[in-house]
Structures are given as C-alpha cells and as structure tokens.
C-alpha cells in the first residue's frame, strides 16, 4: 500500500507564529497541492458513506494540562461546527479545524477534523457524552469518551535523584509553628535541568488556608547539583501572614511551564526543536498556627506582632492652649508594617487628638522590614498641662514568644494660656474616662455653629463689579503718567511756562483791578494796569516786562504789522496811565469803565505771534 497525506493548516492562533518567509512559502505550496487534490477527489467522495468519529489525544492528564478532542468527518461534513455537550468542571473551547486528504491505491479520501481544547477545573474522571450530528440528512454519533484528570503531585524523590525529571519544585517553610499575626517568608524553589529553557511559567494554585499571601519576589538564580544532575534553581520568596489559629496545610504550590524552545530558524533548517508543557507541583507542608498567649497582655496591645523599636518626637513644646503639637512616632523593625496602628493613649485626656497619618518605608523587597512613621496632631486643652504623657506601644515578639512593651518618657511642655478660647473640637461618639476611642477610629464630630453664611454664586473673580474695580489702579497710574508728562513739558519750555505764568497773573490782576476800582484806589489801579500790560507785552515780545514802555508800540509792534485796532486802544491806555500820574483822582465808575477796554486790549495782544 502506498499512502500520501498532507495536513491543511488550521485557523488556530498557532498558525500566526509561522511567519518565517520560507515556511510560509512552503505552506502555500502545500495548500495549493492539497486544494488541487481536494478538487480531484470531490467527485469520488460522494461514492463513500459518511463517517463520524470522536477521539482524545490522551485519556489521562494532570490538572493544569489540556487535552484535545477531535471530531473527524469522512465522506461528508456537517453544515455547522458541531457543538460538544457541556460537562461540569470541564471547559471546552473550539480551537480550529483541519483537513486531511489521503490516497490509498489510487483512491482519494478526505477527512475534516474539528478540534476542541478540554481544560479541567478540578481532578477526577470526566465522561464526554456521545455527540450526534446531522451530515446530509444522515444522523451520526460518536461513542462516549473518558478523560481522567490527576491531581498534581511532586515527582518521587527517587526520580529526582536519578535526574530523570527535567524540572521540579520544592516548598520550604522557615518554621512549623507560627503565631497568629506573625509573618514568615516561604520559599518555592524551581529546579530546571541546566541548559533547558523554561518559559510561560504560570502559577495555578497555592492553597494556604489560615494565611494572607503577600508579595512574591523572584530571587537570584543559581546552579545546584541534585544527584548526578545539575539544575538551575530559581527561588521565589512569598510573604505569608498567619491570620487564624489551628492546624493547617500549606501547598501544594502548582504551576504550568513550557520547557524547551521553538526556534523558527531551527524549524526552517530542519533541526529538531522540542517544546513540552509540564505541570509542576510541590509537596504540602503541615503547619501549626498558634494563638497569641492570653497571659500578660499589655493594656495598649492592639495586635502588633513582630520585632520593633520605637522613637517618639513632638514639637513645638512651647505653645499656647489650643495650638497644635505634632507627635511623630517611628516604629522600625520586622513584621506586617501595613497593619500596624497607633494604640490609644488613655493618659492623653488633656489633649484633643486628631486621626494620625502614616507612611511606610520598607527596606526589603517583600515589604516586611522597614519603618512606619505616624504623625498625629494633639492640642492641649488647658494651661495646666506640663508634659505630653509617656507614649506606650506593645507587641508580641514571636522569636522570644512573649509580649514586649516600648515606652517613650514624657515630653516636657510649656503651655501658655491662650488670649482667646480655643475652638472646641469634639471626637464623635461617647467619650468617657478610661474608654477613650482610638483617635484613628472616627471622624471629628459636627460643628455646632453655622458660621458665616454666604450666597452660592459665581466666584469673586467672575463678579463684574470686581473685574471693573481692577481697572481703577491702572487708570490712576495712567492719569499720573499723563500728569507727569505735562509737568515735565512745562518744566522744559520757559516760554510756555512764562505764558502760563502771565495768563495766571492777568487773571489775578483783573480781579485786583475790580477790587481797586470799587475801592476807588486810583493810584494802585493804574499801577496794576501798567504792570499787566507790561507782563503781556513782555511775554509776547520775549523781553523783560520792566523794559516795556509806550515806545514799544512804534518800535516793535508796528514793524510786526499789528493792526491799528489793537494799537490805538493800547496807546490810549498808556496815555491814561501817564495822565493818572499827574491827576490820579478818578471816580470808581471811571476806573470800572476802563476794565472792558483793558480786557479787549489784552485779548488782542495775546493774538500777536510770539
């Protein structure tokens, strides 16, 4: 007999790994060949009766492994993917299909297989019932299939010593008797035959009843000799905290891993390359979890277990009633630091206490060693307080198997009376003598006064009046800048300054003239009148005012082509002033009548170009 078979690549995700160009080319050629053969044999397929068989790739597996169920059809295929029945605690997922074409003595036959992955959730015997499908109107059924799932177990010591095991694990516990609240570090040692690659390591279970499992940290790899074989040992440290008393079992620690490599270049060049999935398991370890002793429990013990030291600081120590003091408590050592809490301090009854804040700084990767720092604000209530009472902290030391108490001496305080009564602060809930609530256990209670009420509305920054108000300083500054500019311009221009001075003098002088006219003070009147004419002419002609006489009309004003309508009244005024020297007595009315003429002359003189 001569046989030829080829397998069509399935549509499973594994197909995506075949990305090497050569492999892809080879696969395409195979596909083409298979498709051709499939077309050739299609005509002959109808002559065969359809068959349907179900099979498992293996009937016994270990929990954590998977088996493959294949439903093979020959001589016909169902319209849809067949659906296996549900089996309790057995996950069945479709993983793809494949086609196989076989020729035997020139006769073609084609088989289509639908593959399912079976993943058990617990050990035991599973029965996959018969599966019935309809192929071209023909009812076909498989036989029921049996799958045995074994509990993971470590290999026997003899197998380990002989070196036949490619990989195995061990679980180590530092002690067998552990106190509730105590922390230990369990170590899982993973042994892999030296040079054998390991990948896809996944923990599938670590039953540890009575423990809280903390961080898992991988340690430094090293080579060890087991029997006659060298293994690479990978330690994994796991933090465990005992939480309840009793006899318990820790483990087995189980995991899945893939051993070996699947190098695409090895496959392309035809070199052997093998990968194997393994289920690894450790042995179980019996442990006795002991309750904490009931004798000798310190009063402020609040469940801390481990080995600790303490330092306490407080400040300020010179303050007034109502001022806050920050108490900083540092607990350093080994234990479950996250669970540490400050104990209540009944002796602090003269202080208002606020819930503390805390910060953990660890010095090891598992977080079991380090320092936890608490900061708590306390406020003295009266001026009789002379010291912060001693601070006590108790814990159970599992190494010494007894309770230990740390105490910080009292810290002296100088508390002055406050100018105003401090705002009363209450702790919620009843508070009686020795039954002080732990400060961190509740919120600060309600405020009894409503305080200043405000209307709910837009923030101040969005209020139009506020935004408008912000323009005032800018406007004030800009006004000052303008004023300064004008002042500086005046200071730098003597003619302008004189012009303004003369204008001011004339305004003042005219007022004086009116008064002098009313008082009939002829002599002063004409003296002022002459002075005003001199000031105005002097400013216009840029000469000293004292040098101005009536002669200026002919000497300087006429050459400047000043109109006669200006010069004639001016000359008239000068003449009247000269006459007044000799006949000064004039009536008040006569003096008053001169003022319009003077104002007209001064206005005309201001028109003269400087």
């Amino acid at each position, binding site marked *: 007999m001569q046989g030829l078979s080829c397998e069509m690549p399935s549509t499973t995700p594994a197909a995506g790994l075949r990305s090497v160009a050569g492999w892809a080319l080879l696969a395409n050629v195979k596909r083409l060949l298979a498709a051709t053969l499939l077309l050739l044999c299609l005509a002959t397929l109808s002559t065969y009766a359809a068959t349907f068989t179900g099979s498992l790739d293996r009937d016994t597996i270990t929990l954590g492994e998977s088996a493959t169920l294949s439903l093979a059809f020959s001589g016909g295929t169902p319209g849809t993917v067949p659906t296996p029945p549900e089996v309790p605690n057995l996950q069945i997922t479709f993983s793809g299909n494949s086609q196989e074409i076989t020729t035997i003595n020139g006769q073609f036959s084609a088989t289509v297989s639908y593959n399912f992955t079976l993943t058990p959730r617990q050990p035991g015997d599973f029965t996959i019932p018969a599966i019935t499908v309809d192929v071209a109107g023909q009812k076909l059924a498989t036989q029921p299939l049996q799958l045995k799932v074994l509990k993971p177990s470590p290999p026997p010591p003899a197998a380990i010593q002989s070196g036949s095991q490619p990989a195995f694990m061990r679980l180590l516990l530092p002690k067998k008797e552990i106190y509730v609240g105590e922390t230990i570090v369990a170590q899982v040692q993973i042994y892999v035959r030296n040079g054998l690659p390991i990948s896809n390591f996944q923990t599938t279970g670590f039953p540890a009843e009575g423990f809280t499992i903390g961080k898992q940290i991988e340690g430094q790899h090293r080579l060890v000799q087991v029997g006659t074989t060298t293994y690479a040992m990978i330690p994994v440290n796991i933090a465990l905290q005992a939480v309840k008393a009793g006899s318990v079992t820790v483990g087995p620690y189980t995991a899945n891993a893939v051993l070996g490599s699947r190098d695409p270049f090895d496959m392309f060049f035809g070199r052997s390359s093998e990968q194997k999935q393994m289920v690894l398991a450790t042995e179980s370890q019996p442990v006795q979890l002991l309750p904490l002793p009931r004798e000798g429990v310190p009063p402020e013990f609040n469940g801390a277990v481990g080995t600790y030291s303490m330092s306490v600081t407080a400040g300020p120590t010179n303050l007034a009633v109502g001022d*806050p003091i920050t108490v900083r408590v540092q607990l350093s050592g080994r234990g479950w630091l996250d669970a540490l809490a400050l104990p209540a301090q009944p002796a602090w009854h003269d202080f208002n206490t*606020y*819930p503390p*804040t805390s910060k953990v700084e660890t010095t090891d990767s598992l977080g079991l060693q380090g320092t936890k720092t608490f900061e708590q*604000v306390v406020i003295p209530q009266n001026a009789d307080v002379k010291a912060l009472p001693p601070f006590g902290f108790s814990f159970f030391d599992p190494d010494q198997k007894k309770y230990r108490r740390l105490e910080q001496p009292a810290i002296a305080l100088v508390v002055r009376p406050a100018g105003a009564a401090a705002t009363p*602060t209450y702790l*919620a809930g009843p508070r009686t003598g020795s039954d002080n609530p732990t400060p*961190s256990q*509740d*919120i*600060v*209670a*309600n*405020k*009894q*006064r*409503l*305080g*200043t*009420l*405000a*209307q*709910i*509305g*837009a*923030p*101040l*920054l*969005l209020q139009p009046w*506020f*935004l408008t*108000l*912000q323009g005032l*300083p*800018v406007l*004030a*500054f800009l006004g*000052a*800048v303008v*004023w*300064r500019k004008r002042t500086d311009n005046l200071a730098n221009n003597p003619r302008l300054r004189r012009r303004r001075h003369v204008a001011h003098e004339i305004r003042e002088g005219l007022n004086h003239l009116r008064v002098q006219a009313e008082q009939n003070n002829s002599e002063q009147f004409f003296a002022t009148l002459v002075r005003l004419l001199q000031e105005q002419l002097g400013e216009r002609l840029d000469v000293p005012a004292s040098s101005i006489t009536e002669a200026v009309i002919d000497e300087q004003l006429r050459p400047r082509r000043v109109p006669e309508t200006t010069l004639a009244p001016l000359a008239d005024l000068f003449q009247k002033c000269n006459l007044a020297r000799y006949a000064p007595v004039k009536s008040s009315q006569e003096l008053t009548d001169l003022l319009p003429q003077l104002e007209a002359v001064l206005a005309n003189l201001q028109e003269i170009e400087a």
Partner: protein
Amino acid sequence: MSRLLQIVLLLCACTGLLSAQAQVSTNPLTTPAAPPMPSPILSMDAARAFDAANQLYDAGKYTEAAARYEAILRSGQTSSALYFNLGNAWFKAGGLGRAIAAYRRAEQLEPRDPDLRANLRFARNQVQGSTLLPGPAQRFLGRLSLGEWTCAAAGSVWVFFALLTAGQLRPALKRPLRNYVLAEALVALLFCSALGAALQQDRSNPTAIVVTRDAVVRQGPLDESKSVFTAHDGAELQVLDQKDNWLQVTTDSQHLGWVRRDEVVLGNGLI
C-alpha cells in the same frame, strides 16, 4: 521706564487673561449652576434649620440630617460648617463618596480648617482601590481658597500700581522705590500665576467622585464595552471628557475609561 512699562503691560495681560479665562468657561461640566430657586428657608432661618439637622445627626438619623443640610444648601445659603456637617452625615450614613465631595466643597471655603482636613484625610483613607490623590501642586494651591487667591492677586496688583503711581507723582521717590516696585511686580506675577493655576484646576480639571458601591469603568461610553477597572465608593477620578451620560475618567496613566454620569458627583458640582 521702558522696563516698568513692560511689567505693567505683562500684569495687565495676566489680569486680562484671567478675566477672559473666567468668562469663557464653556465646559458644561464646570459651568456654574443656575441660581437656586427661591426657598422658604430664609437666611434668618438657616441657623435654626442647621440646629435641627444637627439634632437629627445626634439622634443617629444621619440620612435625614444630610437631607436637611442639603435643603439649606438648595436655598442658596452656604458655609464651611454646613458642608462639613453634611460630609459627616453622609460618612455616618455610609455614603463615603458623597462625604468626600462635601468635605471638598467645605475645603474650598475654609481650606485650613484642621477638623476638616482631618476628616477628609480620614475619609480618603477608607477608599478602596484606585483613586486620584492631590499632588504637591494641588496641595499648595489648596492652602488658599479661590477667593483668597483672588484677593491676594488683586491686592498685590493694587500695591504694585500704587507704587508706580507714587513714583509718577513724586519723581524723587522713583529711585528709592525701584527695588520695591520690582519685588512687588514679582509678587504680583506669582500671585496671578497661582490664581490662574487655581482657576484652571477649579474650572478645567473637574474631579468626579464615585458615589455608588462599585462603579465599572469601561473602555467606551457604552454599557456593552469591556470593563477596564472598577472604582469603589469615594474614589476620586479626573474627568477628561464627556459624552452623553458618560464621563471619561482616569486615575493615572494605567487607568483610563468611561464611567456612567449617575455613578459619580463632580467635585465642584452640587452634592
């Protein structure tokens, strides 16, 4: 003079930007709520209603007390003590998220109240899972309320312009005042910057606080979207976007997703 003018222009620009930023806040999440409807609770009666709510609280009727406190708030009256007690009532009633939201509103009014800070810290310590905790910058800006930052910035700007104006009116003072003017300009710039940052934080980076037991944060704004993580009661989330009844939230670069609007309250919104 030219340097002073540059500083003046810079300060004016800062003030203008702040005003513009305050005016054009179009984010629907942060737009101030409409003025409350008139309520029978007058300001004179607010103290009486507050005392009545306190009595309900003392009697252990925390939910009823919270409802009374909220009724006062709906009347348009507000105070730090009111939000503080509301937070306490919600905390006692098991509403951790609403308690944190109320404490945060109280913090905006009286940011340095030690009782308030203690309760807010205590409530935050009760929150499980991922939550957004204030960073150093937010803690610094939180030392003053938005109103206090506004007054500080405005006051420093006024002092700055007063010094400049004095220099213009009395040129002899210009030289002695020059260092003060520069220092005051720096102070005013710092206060204006802090005010801008506080306003940005208050208006543009709203915080959502989970008020249901578990709020599923999903990959998209659909009930069918895959879950990214679950935020628990009291978790504070930064809001990045809004779509229909969903908010895009994050706690850090690893946690980003959409949460239903009715499962959270906004940190600067109504409780």
